[in-house]
């Protein structure tokens, strides 16, 4: 099992009601699977666009999560 620290930003915090949470998953779970788990916990996540980082680097959906990691869900950026 991997112990994940999941961070939510911007409008996603309105959906999750929190900015971070802990989450346990099987070793080698791909990002795409984690997204399905989170989207079933927070159904409105399915309706919005977001990117995912794995240990602070943008990650593709098929990347497997191989360690205790920091995962972040980032909605479209709106700086400036």
């Amino acid at each position, binding site marked *: 099992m991997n112990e994940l620290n999941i*961070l939510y*930003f911007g*409008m996603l915090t309105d959906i999750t009601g929190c900015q971070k949470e802990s989450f346990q998953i099987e070793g080698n779970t791909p990002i795409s699977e984690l997204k399905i788990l989170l989207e079933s916990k927070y159904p409105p996540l399915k309706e919005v666009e977001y990117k995912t*980082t794995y240990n*602070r*680097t943008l990650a593709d959906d098929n990347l497997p999560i191989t360690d205790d990691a920091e995962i972040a869900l980032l909605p479209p*950026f*709106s*700086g*400036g």
Partner: protein
Amino acid sequence: MKKKKKVFVQGAIAPEFIAESIAKHQTKTTIGAHDIFLGQVRADEIDGKTVQAIEYTTYEEVAENALHEIREATFEKFTGLTCMHIYHSLGTVKAGEICLFVFVSSGHRTEAFEACQYLVERIKKEVAVFGKEIFEDNSYTWKENTPA
């Protein structure tokens, strides 16, 4: 690899800070042109309510990595650049105040113009900053950036 420069500042960017940045470049006498972009918070009306302020948050390490990469790419693309400075606010910036300061200097004008615009587009698109537009009744909406 150059060291990562401090980009994020708490609250609005003061005009005096901009003046100091300009003044610091007066010893660099190969510079002939500066282009400065300033983003200012608009009091947009949205569904009958007026934006009073934007509250900015960031995923700081991820944003700084992106900024570092953007900076390096800009120096590579515009080889005549002398300097480049980027500052972005975090926290609350009121309508009329400045939240983004991009400052590019070069020997001649065309590179300064092109590099500045290139930087601003990439910053808006690629840097993990989130703006929450706050209305007078403390309700809010999440800011969306328009494409250039």
